[in-house]
Every structure is written in structure tokens, then in C-alpha cells.
């Protein structure tokens, strides 16, 4: 009995000692208290993108479609945007309340998987859904997307690049929703100056000086393709067989040099470099362990919440390849709102998609969610041009490969290449790197 008690005590002491040992190396949390809540939606007036005549006309069609019943629609948008979309959807219902009873559910679905989920079961999928531009071909080919009902307006209102990305075989198949689905540099202004943020070498050097980290996600093809693109490789849609990825006329040695430059740099600064998800960058800002990182446009709001006024945003820096400072080139995409071709209420769905992608809604989302606009007027608005993060990412668009038609086999080989170059124990000899690059490109092409 006694021994039992002693042992239990011993065990308890051990556990407590373990806790205390860990607590011993206390570092004060450096995160500034920042109010994470968004500016309240406030009293907003319902915006109507249509004239009274149009509404009567559209309303009549919606009424016809409803045929006396309730119109039920489902919208898919990611978790972070739920509140904004719920409010916008309510406004839409308000406009047509005299014509039909409309019920719209906003459900959670990230843009990355939306396409696959629509395709696996179009009948239970959302009628109107947000998706990333790389899924256009996959969705449009079997006819899962309804053609846009207002092609002229959409074309005139949105940036030509976004409209082009939303076009498949001559038809406009989706409504541009976001003009900057991409990633760029975010840094802590206390650690890194705007000047340092221009070159990757300087950033890593600053991280080393501060004993902090630079984080980017090299294990994901979406980010890792930048190593190839910086070396001059570009995707150019499809080959004639309609299945294989087509590339530009790239120089394999230059691509290798680019990949090798990244690999060597990460190896040199391996103590201050970390490959992790973009959420880890934001976490690092919160914990005060990270000076800079590559984040997605969708992370801007949380990065601002973590860093407050110290948040700095810039286009991706340059990297020194064989003596020349080369700007890093990334993949630049869009987000679209698609209308499910199997929807029971195509007319209402089209009107809703149009409404959600119009100028005012994009403006609202730019202000509340930091989603960069595809709408020309919003892109030129004071809010966007004065916004550091949005102007930075729109500037990034000038040095990037448009994410239009990307085959499904693109991502995994890129991710494997990214994982390869961030493993510092690898021997990055010219020949080894070249072999990896060739393997990666072959894998993209072969399957």
C-alpha cells in the first residue's frame, strides 16, 4: 500500500517536473493585442445592379421558373466568407421578393474541392458555387457548368485576363469573382525593411539576424511550381490531344539553375527556413517566431489580425540565379462563381451568380474579406489602390503564369520537387537537380 502511494507520488512529481521544465524557458509572447473582428457590416443599403425594367423582366422569368413553388438554391463558399455571402444573398432575395419565394442556403465548401464535389454528384451539389480557376477545364468539359447568361456585361465589367480564364472553347462558362487567387510575400515590418523584402537573400539574412523564420509551403505543387516558373518554364494550356499539359519553349538548363538556386539558398539558411502550410506563417507571426513568409491572398485578413500595423506585403522577392537577381514568378489564378448546369432553377441561379459577382458585392468582399476584385471598377477604386496587400498582389500578376488550364497531373510532381529541394541533406549538384527537374516534367507530361 505504502509503495503504491510513493510510486503515485513519484509519478505525479515527474509529470509536474516535466511541465515545469518546459515552462522554464519562458519567452514573453510578442504578439500585439489586435482586434481580430472585422468591421461590422453595419447598415448597408441593398444594391441593385439592374434597372427597374430589368428586374421586372428577370422577375417575370424567375416567377415562371418557380411556377408557384418555392425556389431553393444552394451556394458553396468557404468557411471564412460565410457571413458576407449570407448577407449578400439576403439582399438578392430582397430584390425579387415580389416575384417568387426564394430560399438560399449558403453551405461551407472550400474553392479547392468544389469542382470535384460538383462532378461526383451534380444533383446534390450547390447550384451556385465558388471555385478556383484551375478547375475550369475539368468542369466545363463534361458540361457541368452552365454558360453565363449575361456574357456581354460580364466581359465588359471584368478584367480581360479573368474573363479569358473563365472562357472554355469560346463560351464564357463562369462569373469572375476574385481577381487575385495567388500568393505573395508577407513580412513583419519590425524585422524586415521594405528594401530587404525585395530580395530573398536579404530576407533570409534578416531572419538569421533576428533568429526568426521564413516560412513557405514547398510541399504543395501550387507553391512549388514557382521554382520552375522562375527559371522560365510556363504552362500554355493543352497539347492537341486535349489531355497533356503544353509548355512553352523553355530552356532546361535555366530551369535547373533556378531550382538549384532555391535549393542552395534554403540549404544555406536551413536553420531559418521552414516549409509549412500558410496558416503556419500566420501562427508564426502570432507567436513572434516568424519574420516573413509566403501567404495566400485568402490569408491576408488573418495575417493583418496577427501583425496589425506591422504587416508588410510585397510581391515575391528576387532570387540570385548565377549572379542575376531574377524576380520570382508564381502561378496566378482567379476565383469564379459557377452555375451548376443541372440546377433545377437555372434562371434564378444565373441571376444570383451575376449578382454575387457584380461590382458592389466585389467591393464589399474586398473591404471585409480582403478578396481582390476581378471587376475593373473595383480594382481601380481608392480602397483597392490604397490597400497595400491588394495592390501588392495585383502587382504580382504582372510577373506570373496565369493559372488557366492545368492538367490534374501537374501538382503532385511539383510538390515532390518542392519537397526534394527543401531537404537540406540532399546533395544539390547540378546533375542531381537536373535529374529531379527532368523527372518532375516527365511526370507532369506522362500520365
Amino acid at each position, binding site marked *: 500500500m505504502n*509503495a*503504491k502511494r510513493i*510510486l*503515485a507520488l513519484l509519478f505525479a512529481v515527474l509529470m509536474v517536473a516535466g511541465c515545469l*521544465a*518546459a515552462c522554464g524557458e519562458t519567452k514573453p509572447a510578442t504578439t500585439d493585442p489586435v482586434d481580430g473582428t472585422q468591421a461590422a457590416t453595419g447598415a448597408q443599403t441593398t444594391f441593385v445592379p*439592374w434597372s427597374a425594367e*430589368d428586374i421586372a*423582366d*428577370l422577375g*417575370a*422569368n424567375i416567377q415562371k421558373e418557380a411556377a408557384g413553388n418555392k425556389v431553393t438554391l444552394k451556394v458553396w463558399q468557404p468557411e471564412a466568407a460565410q457571413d458576407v455571402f449570407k448577407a449578400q444573398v439576403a439582399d438578392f432575395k430582397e430584390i425579387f421578393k415580389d416575384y417568387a419565394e426564394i430560399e438560399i442556403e449558403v453551405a461551407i465548401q472550400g474553392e479547392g474541392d468544389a469542382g*470535384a464535389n460538383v*462532378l*461526383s454528384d*451534380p444533383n446534390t451539389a450547390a447550384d451556385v458555387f465558388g471555385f478556383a480557376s484551375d478547375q475550369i477545364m*475539368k468542369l466545363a*468539359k*463534361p*458540361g*457541368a457548368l*452552365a*454558360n*453565363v*447568361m*449575361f*456574357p*456581354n*456585361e460580364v466581359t465588359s465589367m471584368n478584367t480581360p485576363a479573368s474573363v479569358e480564364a473563365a472562357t472554355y472553347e469560346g463560351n464564357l462558362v463562369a462569373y469572375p469573382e476574385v481577381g487575385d487567387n495567388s500568393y505573395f510575400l508577407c513580412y513583419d515590418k519590425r524585422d524586415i525593411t521594405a528594401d530587404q523584402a525585395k530580395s530573398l537573400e536579404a530576407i533570409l539574412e534578416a531572419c538569421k539576424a533576428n533568429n526568426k523564420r521564413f516560412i513557405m509551403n514547398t510541399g504543395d505543387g501550387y507553391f512549388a511550381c514557382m521554382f520552375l516558373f522562375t527559371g522560365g518554364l510556363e504552362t500554355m494550356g493543352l497539347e492537341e490531344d486535349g*489531355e497533356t499539359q503544353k509548355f512553352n519553349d523553355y530552356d532546361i538548363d535555366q530551369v535547373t539553375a533556378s531550382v538549384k538556386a532555391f535549393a542552395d539558398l534554403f540549404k544555406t539558411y536551413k*536553420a531559418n527556413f*521552414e516549409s*509549412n502550410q500558410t496558416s*503556419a506563417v500566420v*501562427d508564426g507571426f502570432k507567436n513572434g*517566431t516568424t519574420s516573413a513568409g509566403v501567404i495566400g491572398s485568402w490569408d491576408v485578413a488573418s495575417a493583418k489580425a496577427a501583425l496589425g500595423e506591422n504587416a508588410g506585403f510585397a510581391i515575391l522577392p528576387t532570387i540570385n540565379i548565377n549572379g542575376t537577381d531574377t524576380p520570382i514568378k508564381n502561378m496566378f489564378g482567379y476565383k469564379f462563381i459557377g452555375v451548376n*448546369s*443541372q440546377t433545377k432553377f*437555372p*434562371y434564378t441561379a*444565373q441571376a444570383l451568380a*451575376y449578382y454575387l459577382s457584380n461590382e458592389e458585392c466585389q467591393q464589399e468582399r474586398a473591404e471585409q474579406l480582403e478578396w481582390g476584385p476581378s471587376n475593373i471598377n473595383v480594382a481601380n477604386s481608392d480602397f483597392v489602390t490604397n490597400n497595400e496587400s491588394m495592390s501588392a498582389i495585383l502587382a504580382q500578376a504582372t510577373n506570373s503564369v496565369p493559372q488557366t488550364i492545368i492538367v*490534374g497531373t501537374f*501538382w*503532385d510532381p511539383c*510538390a*515532390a*520537387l518542392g*519537397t*526534394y529541394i527543401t*531537404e537540406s*541533406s*540532399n546533395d544539390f549538384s547540378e546533375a542531381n537537380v537536373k535529374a*529531379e527537374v527532368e*523527372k518532375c516534367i*516527365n*511526370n507532369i*507530361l*506522362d*500520365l
Partner: protein
Amino acid sequence: MKYIDYIQLNPLQRFWYKFKETIKNLPNTLKAFFCAIGKAIKNFVLKIALGIKDFAVGFAQGDIITKLSYIIMGLGNVTRGQVIKGIIFFSLEVAYIAFMVFFGGAYLSQFFHLEAQYHYETISGGRGGTSQTLVYDSYSNQILLYGILAIMATLAIVAVYVASTKSARKCEQLVKAGKKPETFISEVKEFLDSKFHITLLSVPVILICVFVLLPLIFMILMAFTNYDDKNYFSFQWVGMANFAEIFSGNTTGASMGYTFGNIVLWTLIWAVAATFSNYILGMVVALMINKKGIKLKKLWRTLFVMTIAVPQFVTLLLISQMIGQSQDSPLNLIISMFTGAPSQFNVMAPLYDGWIARIAVIIINIWIGIPYTILMTTGILMNIPEDLYESARIDGAGPVKSFTKITLPYMLFVTTPHMITNFIGNLNNFNVMYLLTGGGPSMGDYAYGAGKTDLLITLLYRLSVDKQKYGLGAAIGILVFIVCATLSLITFNMTKSAKDEEAFS
């Protein structure tokens, strides 16, 4: 070897002997198995032929009412006093016809080409002008599924039909002989006694048919189609193309054949390593806890068993977060506590052909599996006669020797079947691999982004859920089945319990 020799062997030798014999007999066992299947099929065909003969004879000899009830099911029963039974037969016939006319028939007719049906719809109005849309009337997977359903329904109705004709014939004969056909009540009563098995099994069997057999047939057939991310809505029969891809190897890129071969190899290595490491180490811990003179036995056991009690996905997700490559991951924090410098140890490092991750999952699996072994073996370990150890100690054997010479052989002998089930469970250990590593690290030499720790079962999931290669995934599923079925077959032949029950005779 004669029986007298056999019983003189020690347990380990007996096990080894049994094992050798099983392997030696494997060709015969397999042959016997397939012969048995062949015989079953032959019997089945014979039975059907007999049935058809009966059926024809019954029709020829029956009177007009019996003849009519070959068309209108249940007529014979109704006119001869078995009203309720007759009505049941008739309503089943009506239900089947309605099902085929309004639903099943259309799908059955498309079953052989599978192609989806669609039309174009145009909507116009407002400022926007027109929008033309492709609207699907039926999808290939619907056709496949409903087609199978229609075939199953047809088989079922044929069985009912045969039963109804037999019943009509029996009624006629009974009436002719001046007897009364059985009443409905007395027939129902039989279901509680001589036909009790039907009462018991009907509901489970129907449920299994709908929720296991039907989907199984669906997926097996899917392996012969090109249902994948390029043919979502409309796909066709492609014969053995998916199997051909699995065994194909092209030279430049990552080929499926290469991937499959390596993943099979790793799956086997993993299953052996995971099973034996858990088994032996778990037993060592159990022995330590149960050693004479060790106090607080219950506390120690609970400490380990706690980890089983927490839902597995929680612990696995937790550990996968804890071994992340970040400097902030608990694993790296612990390492840096010992080394004093920030640690960047990466379990998923793409080095040494992924062996870091492979060894890591085996170690983590020990963490998961040992408590199970402790739970299971404690009771059996207590049963080993103490005097065995006592005499070993007198002979000068240390703890290691008495473990390898006494405990292990004894336990192996007693728990072999359990180990083999464990082995098969580990072959298909989806949770551990999927939640811990997600199959990674992917080093670019496998097809479809498969990684170095991918098992066959996670490959199956990756292909059919993540990559939407449903056809290819189903083909892999069939291969997994063949592997598991062969192993199970060996197991059942090795263990006496199965032989006693004549599971496969």
C-alpha cells in the same frame, strides 16, 4: 510424420511443422478450393436444370387454373383456399412489373453501353440574352447501379415465381387428393419453428444484399469501366484496361506498374513489422507488469489501456500534428530540450527512399498497438504454468532465455490465429497510414502522387476518392481482395478451429 511424433514436439516446433505443411499443401488447398467452387457451380447448374424440368412438367400436368397461375402468380393459391399467400404472390408480380416498366427497364436496356443521356436546354430573357446548357437525363453510374438493381430484382422475382408455381401445383394436388391446403396461420407458425432460420436470417440477408452485395457488385463491375476524372458523367466498358494499367510499366515517367509493385512490397513489410513488433514488445511489457513483486499492476495497465480507449482518430490526428516538421512541433521541442539547439527533424523527409517515415510509422504503431497486446495477452500469460519458469531458472536460464524458450513458443502456439487476423488487419490498416502520413513522403517516382508509406488500401483510397480514378481504384480493390482472401484461406487451413467447423469443405 506420425501423430506420436507430432505430440512430442514442443509448441514452437509444432507451429513450424504446421506452417511448413500448410505451405507445402498450398497448391493442393487452392486446387481443392477451386474444385469446391467448381463443384458448387456444377451442382447449381444441375439444380436449375432439374428445376426447369419440374417447372415444365408441372405446367404440362396441371389443370387450367394451375396453367393460368404460371402467368398470374398466386391464382392457384387464391382459388384453392390460400387467399393471403396468393395475394402476396400476386402483389409481388405486380410490383416487379411496375418497377421494370417505370424504372428498372429503361436502365437495364442502357446497361450494355452505359453512356449517359443528355439534352440541351436554352434559357433566355432579361438583358443577358441566351444561355445554352447541357442537361443530363441519366448518368453512367446511375445506369450501372440501377441496372444491377434491376438484374437482382429479376433474379429475386424468378425465385418467387418458381416458388409460386410449385405452390400452385401443390395446392392442386392436395385438393385433388381431397385434402385442404395449409392455412396461412399454420404456415406462419412454421416460421417460428422448422423454418426459424428464415425468420432470423431474412432481415440481415436483405440488408446485406442491399448495403454490401449490391455496392460490391457495383464496384467490381466498375473495375471494368473507364470511370475516372475524365469521364465523370459518361463512361463505358473497357474490359481489362484498368488491370493492364496496374501491371504496365513505361520507361520515362512514374508508371503504375512500378508504383504498384513497390507498394505491395512495402505493404507486406509493414504488415510483418507492425504485427511482430506489437506482439513481442507488447508481451514484454505485459510480462513486466505481471511480474511477481511488481506493485500497482492496475495502474500500469490502465496507463497503457487509456490510449486505446481514446478514439483512435483523435490520437492519430494528434500525433500527426505532433510530429510535424515545424520547429514548434512537440517532437522537435522535445529533441531541442535534449540537444539545447532548435531542432528541425522532419519525419517526412524525402530521404533514404522514405525509410525515415516508414520506420516512424512502425514506431508510432507500436505506441498504438502495444496496449492491445497487453490487454489480450495478460490473461493467457497468467496461464503459463509457473513451474516451467521455475525449472528453467534452476537450469540457469536468464529472463531473456526463458522468454524465448518458454513464453514466446507458448504464446505463439495459443495466439497464432489472432496474430494472423492482426496481420490481415495490418495489411489494410488505413487509419494509421492515412492520418499519420497521408501516404507521404512522395518522392516523385510513384504514379498519382503516391508516397513511400502508402499501403494498398491507402492507394485505393487515393485513387478512388482523391484522384477520382474510380475504375482503377476498383481494380486495385479486387487485387487487395485476392491477396487477403488467399491469406485468409491459408489461415483457415492452418488453424484447427476452422477445420473443425469445415468452413470450406
